[in-house]
């Protein structure tokens, strides 16, 4: 992206709630901004004063280590003061409502609240009621915008552009906020998207979003430019959705054998945490086509960009 297009857009959002509400221009603007912050990560002193004096609260009502850590490091690099609150440590366990807890954070001058919550729509709920910036770090099965942005960033970095690519997302789509945010972002930037997984976890209804649904991974893999494998869980609440890990691997696992069908330059992505040997063969996860660790590193740049853009918006 050129300097010209950067200057054409003025960032106007105090919140980042989802990818669906963003325009292609806004997405590209965030990716471009992240380029600059990625450079910061290569310096000896990896810290800039962009959010000095601002307070960021990592409010994680649902457990997370990876995303929380990434936001925390991103905020520290921007010189913000960071507080972490988990569900078990918050007043939510004492019956306080989400609104009241968040209002307390605001009254404590939290400039930015990064929210992870098990209910779809919780970040929007807070954004409508608070003047603090709300950054969605994953809400229910709804959206996980920074994950999609870092995925788009990684794809753009490796492939030069997102438009025209065929991106295949494999696994538990129904319950995945990563899948939804990726679908919205990829389509906005002009990619073609195919969803693959068990019919119970990849309902045909998704085709109404503008993607293709397939239950035959072997047929799809040869045309893929990117394969994004989502974490498969076969815990208590998923027992009704597919019979077991063995059958999943046989039908949808990215085995070494199956990977031979991939184009040599096809990227393999995974938002983590990986179940080695389930979604993906262990060696493939560490192989030449894998960009899984790039995703993590790019996540820092994306989160710095998002915090910088939204946190810098003056609130009324």
């Amino acid at each position: 992206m050129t300097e010209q297009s950067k200057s054409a857009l003025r960032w106007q959002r105090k919140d980042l709630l989802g990818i669906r509400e963003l325009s292609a221009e806004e997405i590209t603007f965030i990716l471009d901004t992240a380029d600059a912050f990625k450079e910061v990560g290569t310096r000896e002193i990896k810290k800039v004063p962009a959010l000095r004096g601002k307070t960021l609260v990592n409010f994680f009502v649902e457990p997370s280590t990876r995303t929380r850590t990434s936001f925390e490091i991103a905020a520290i690099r921007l010189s913000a003061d960071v507080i972490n609150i988990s569900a078990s440590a918050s007043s939510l366990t004492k019956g306080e409502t989400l609104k009241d807890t968040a209002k307390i954070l605001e009254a404590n001058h939290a400039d930015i609240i990064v929210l992870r919550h098990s209910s779809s729509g919780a970040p929007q709920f807070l954004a409508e009621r608070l003047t603090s910036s709300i950054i969605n770090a994953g809400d229910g099965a709804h959206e996980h915008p920074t994950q999609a942005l870092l995925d788009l960033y990684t794809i753009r970095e490796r492939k030069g552009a997102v438009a025209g690519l065929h991106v295949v997302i494999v696994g538990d789509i129904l319950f995945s906020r990563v899948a939804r945010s990726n679908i919205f972002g990829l389509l906005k930037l002009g990619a073609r998207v195919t969803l693959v997984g068990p019919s119970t976890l990849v309902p045909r209804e998704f085709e109404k979003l503008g993607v293709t649904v397939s239950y035959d991974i072997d047929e799809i893999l040869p045309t893929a430019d990117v394969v994004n494998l989502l974490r498969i869980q076969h815990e208590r609440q998923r027992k009704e959705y597919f019979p077991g890990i063995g059958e999943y691997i046989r039908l949808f696992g990215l085995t070494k054998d199956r990977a031979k069908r991939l184009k040599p330059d096809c990227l393999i992505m995974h938002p983590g945490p990986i179940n080695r040997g389930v979604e993906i063969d262990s060696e493939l996860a560490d192989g030449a086509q894998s960009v899984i660790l790039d995703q993590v590193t790019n996540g820092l740049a994306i989160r710095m960009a998002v915090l910088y853009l939204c946190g810098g918006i003056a609130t009324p």
Partner: protein
Amino acid sequence: MSTVIRNGRIIDPANKRDEVADLAMIDGRIVDLSEIRTSPSEIDEIDATNLIVCPGLIDLHVHLREPGFGWKETIESGARAAAAGGFTTIVCMPNTSPIADSPSTIAWIKDRAAEVACVNVLPTGAISKGLMGEELAPISSLGQAGVVAITDDGRCVQNNELMRRAVEYARMVGLPVFDHCQDYNLVGTGVVHEGYWSTLLGLPGWPSAGEEAIVMRNVLLAELCDHHIHCQHISAAGSVRILREAQARGVRISGEVCPHHLALTDDAIQNFDTNFKMNPPLRGKEDVTALLEGIADGTLGILASDHAPHAKFEKEVEFDAAPFGIVGLETELGLFIDLLVHKKKTIDLPRLIEMFTVNPARLLQIEAGTLSPGRTADVTLIDPELEWTFDASASQSISRNTPFDGWKLKGRAVRTIVSGQTAWKL
């Protein structure tokens, strides 16, 4: 005390009457005009020119929240909201605290209503003890205490065998069985209609089949037990088809429709506003079309609100966590007239009034719902052409959980008369 309502269009579907005439009442009873013998100066006159004069409307699906949840609604405030909506008789659901599964709770509700309610309040009793779906409530004792139906509304008996026995027992006692149709396994944690919007928003879906399965179950049991089952708040196209086919075979099964399932579709949930969260959920356009067809051909013979008050602090939470339900007593008549009579022209006013009077009265086996001489003078005056805007802040209900605040509607009750006394007047 003699009252004459002058020059209104009297619509009394039970007597197939539709004419401009005067309606007379003496001491809280409807009488023939010829019985008014007092001098004109002693007659209380009400001018009803250009108004509809019809039997007091009945809403057989209302949550009054007492005993137990007085911060949401009370019998007094709920009755006031009913009167303001044109209703003279309301039927309240048993999911109170304590649950209305014992004669003492029914007696408390009746006593309280007699003391504070400005309209007739008829309680229902639970099907199962504690609404737990495991053991039968004392249905005969509930009947003796004065319930007009049994239902586990808010919950649904999942055990088909228990439901079968409840229906058989209720037949002996002579009480109709109402059912909130929801298969818990199919619905799971669903909070919105399973379809495009649940897929897009990642909200747990509540599939239509979760209602249709229980409607079908009820058809089978109504047939097996030869007794009436009334399916509450029907929302899905498939349910309408199942009811239509069963009724054609003579099965004793009926269904009711709530205004929100006609006025709104599931796209309304896209901003996660919990005032659009109800159970069953708002469904798709094709479901609305099927409900309208069901109303037009008589498959769905009863209109009701499912008035479900909740406090603002209860509704102002994450979408998943919010309680289901909206208030509806003050908007339902306006919404139905506006939609069914004016906009969609699905039915005419006499049909609409039939669905609010004689049809629920027959189901409940109560002596309300007609203007026959000798009957209690419960009368509603309606201006079907009145254009008005609903202002939730001016509501009679304690709770304000409505998606219809600020809606412009055409058609409204302008006076509600209970036992000859004006309970509410615009």
